[in-house]
Structure formats: C-alpha cells, structure tokens
C-alpha cells in the first residue's frame, strides 16, 4: 500500500539560501512520525513544503498521488491540516470563529457535530467560545490551533513545534491529546519537535534532519538508543 504521505528528494530554498537538500520521508496511514533536528536543520521548511507554503522541487505525494501545483488552499482541501510554528491562530477573532475557519473546507458532517467532537478533547472551548483568541494563554492558543486543525477531520496533521514556549505540564497534555487522537481516530501525524524525548515517545518512527538532509531514520525506540541521537538531542 502506498504511504499516506511521501516526500521524494524534496529541495526547497528561501531566495538563494537552500533549506532542504533532498529530503525523502514518508508517513503511513495511522502513524505518528516525528522529525527531529537542530535549529535551521529544515524541519519547519519540510512541513511548509508539504502544505505548499514554500515552493520546492522533487515530489510530494499524498494518498499515492503527486500534489500538482501545490498551494496551501489546495493542500488544505486534500485533507492535510497544518498547525504552523507560532500556532497561526487569528488572535483578533473569537475562539468559535477560529474553529469555524478550521471547518472552512469541510465537506461532510455538520459543523455542530464536529465542534462537539473537538470540544470533547478541549472542554474549555465550550465556556469560552466568545473570547478573543489573542487573550488566551500560550497553551490555550496551541490547543485552539490543534482544535481548529481537527475540526475539518483531516487525514493528516502537520504539527510544528507544539511545545515551543509552553510549560512542561501543558506540553504533556498536548502530546497526550495527540496520542489519543492517533489511537481513537486513527489520525496520522507528522510532528516537528525540538523536544526529542517527548517526540520519540509519541512517535512510532522518526527522522533526524541535519542541514537540510535526512541524517538518520528509524523506529523511535531504536533512535532513542542511538549514541549520536542521545548525545545531540536527548542530552545524556
């Protein structure tokens, strides 16, 4: 069976600065996959390429079909939801309006049912529907971004640094929700994360990027035992 997402030799650049030098990776149906790496290794760019926010050469295939003329609008319609670095919520809109935007391209299922489903994961959405999203705490904003991504019932979730700037307890909560989503709804996830320990625990497989290339790949437990991964990313 073809993988859900497959990148083949993807190269991308910002102006004359090359960020990806031929990245190949895949995410299978129902799998959580982590991408590790230092700052500037190309983790974020990899996700941005998948969702069409940056141009690239090489090929990205979703559900076995190469994404032709990629643009974020088109990729969103394929069923790929991207929670970007910095969360990308609309801080001037209300919690409910943010969620509605998540359902913008949803084709089936009623909005109310989907909201109820997502509110099951984040019960506080219910009480704070009218609150301006910019006044939420950082952790709440991350949860709202996650909720907004989920409300459209994506086939694949792209998650960029969900732990950035958040308290450890909030980070654990977010990762436990991602794990639940994967187990209960079979959601496939590609997560980029600096916190390698957490990412390796949540993911079945992982890739390690170094200067725009895949340096290592394998099952999470193998990578966690790998000497250089331990020294560079786990710190022991």
């Amino acid at each position, binding site marked *: 069976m073809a993988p859900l997402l497959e990148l083949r030799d993807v190269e991308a650049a910002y102006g004359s600065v090359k960020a990806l030098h031929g990245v190949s990776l895949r995410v299978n149906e129902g799998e959580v996959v982590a991408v590790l790496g230092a700052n500037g290794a190309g983790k974020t760019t990899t996700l941005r390429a998948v969702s069409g926010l940056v141009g690239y050469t090489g090929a990205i295939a979703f559900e076995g079909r190469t994404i032709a003329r990629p643009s974020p609008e088109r990729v969103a319609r394929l069923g790929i939801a991207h929670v*970007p670095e910095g969360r990308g919520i609309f*801080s001037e*809109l209300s919690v409910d309006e943010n969620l509605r935007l*998540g359902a913008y391209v949803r084709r089936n299922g009623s909005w109310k049912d989907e909201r109820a489903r997502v509110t099951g994961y984040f019960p506080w959405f219910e009480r704070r529907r009218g609150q301006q999203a910019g006044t939420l705490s950082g952790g709440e904003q991350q949860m709202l971004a996650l909720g907004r991504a989920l409300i459209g019932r994506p086939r694949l979730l792209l998650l960029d640094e969900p732990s950035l700037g958040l308290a450890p307890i909030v980070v654990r909560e977010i990762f436990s929700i991602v794990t639940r989503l994967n187990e209960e709804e079979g959601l496939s996830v590609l997560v980029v994360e600096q916190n390698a320990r957490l990412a390796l625990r949540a993911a079945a497989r992982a890739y390690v990027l170094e200067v725009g290339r895949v340096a290592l790949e394998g099952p999470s437990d193998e990578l966690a035992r790998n000497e250089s991964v331990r020294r560079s990313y786990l710190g022991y």
Partner: protein
Amino acid sequence: MPQSATDVADFAQQVVSGLSSGSIYASVALAIVIVYRSTGAVNFAQGEMATFTTFVAWTLVDHGLGYWGAFALTLLIAFAGGIVLERVLIRPVEDAPVLTVVILTIGLFIALNGLMNWIWSAQVRSFPPNRPFPTRTIDVGGVAISIQDIGIVAVTLALVFALYVLFQHTKVGLALRAAALDRDSSRLVGVRVGWMLALGWGLAAALGAVAGLFTAAAFPPLEPNMMRAVLIYAFAAAVLGGLTSPVGAVVGGLALGVTLNLLSAYVDFVGTQLRLPVALVLILGVLLVRPAGLFGRVAVRRV
C-alpha cells in the same frame, strides 16, 4: 446654542442634513477601511471609482433605464469592476511594499479621471434628471426634514447593515475577515485569500458607487471631480474611526457630516469655504492625539 423653538428646529434640520452628507462620507470611509484592512494600503482612487460608476449610471439612465433600476445595476457593475481592478492591477503587486500599491492607486486615480473626461467630457450634468427622492419635506415635531436626507441616510444605513451581516454572520464574511488578518493562516485553512481581497475591492467599489450616486443627487452637478472633497472627508472620517474599524468609519462619517454642517451654520468664519481645512485639521489632530482613532484597536497578541 439654540434658544427659541425656531432655533431648535433649525438646529435639528442642520443635524439631519449633516447626517445625510455624513452617510455619504461614511460609505466612502467604509470602502477605504475595507480595502485598508485587507491590503494595508489606502485606495486613493476610491473617489474616482465612485464618480466613474456614477457616470455609468448616468449612461444607463440616458439609455432609458429608470433611476432605481440603473442604481441597482450600477452597484453590480461597480462590484464586478472592483473585482476586476484588484485582479488585474493590484494582484501583480500583492507582495510588493505598501507604498507600491498606494502609488498604483494614485495612478488609477489619474487614469480614471482622464478616462471620465475623455468619455463623458468635462461638461456639467445634472443627475439624476429628476430627483430620486421627493423634494418635499415632512414635519417631525415642528422640524421640517427633507425626504431626500432621510432617504440617503436610510439607504446608506441599510447597505451598511447588509455589509455588517455579511461580514459578521456568513461564512464568506468570516473568510474575508480572516484573509485581512493573516494571509498565511487563512490559506492554511483553505481560504482563497486572493479572491477574498478581490471581493473586498468589489464590495468597496459598490459602496463607493452608492456614495457617488448620492453625491451627484445631493450636491449636483455630476462632473469628473465631484468626489474630490468627499474623498478628503472620507479620509478624515476613516482616520477618526481608526482606519481599521468599519464601525469607526461609519460613526466617524456621520459625526463628521454633522460637525461640519453645524460649524458651517453656526460658526461664521467657517461657512462653506473652510469645510475642507476643518477636515484636514481633524485628520492631523486625530493622528497626533490618538493615532489609533476612536475605534481602532491595538492588536492584543501573545507570543
């Protein structure tokens, strides 16, 4: 200040007629705000676009269409024209600095003005040939109020309300607001941002068309430069309201219309000659004292 009963009646009349011209300023101010919010640029051609569409309405009436039929058709033409202008003119410079876009709208201002002079010549026209509203006045508690003033205020406010419903209570309205706030995030949830910007231009052009039609009716004649002063007043209204606030633009427009009217009527040296400088002083004052305007918000953001 008003003392006797006639003074009160006179004062009330000045207020109502101020609301009438104020609703014209409000429409153009709102058009400016809609475009500003989505592109970050002020459209200096908004007034000339309005005049141009008013000439289109004149042509339609000249070919035998009724005034209100031409009115409705003109709004549709303006809407479509606004979309086309954005797609053809603004789209190519979408990612360019704001100054580029502003200069482009100034170019559009000059081009449209030239085009109007060329097509319709600078000859002075009375439009509509018959007043769109009855010229009578009605008596409200001893105050004679012109039906035209009421009509202009009512039609404008109805359109503003329709826009409010569109922006606040429809899916496309939410997408329009989202696209104006954050392009990348909007695209990630599947909003076609480019089309939303074009739609914004279309709505702004239609609003401008209403203002142009009413300007021609209330302050004849119809001629290519008729919206120049209105545009300045609209800028003042938009700045007063905070440039990013649709509510502010409407309140600012109405407040400015009433203020200018009262100043002209009661402060001798202002008269009709000094109305424009008053508007400019207002722009300057607001920018100095309260740059975010009355309703402009400083974005709350946590990072």
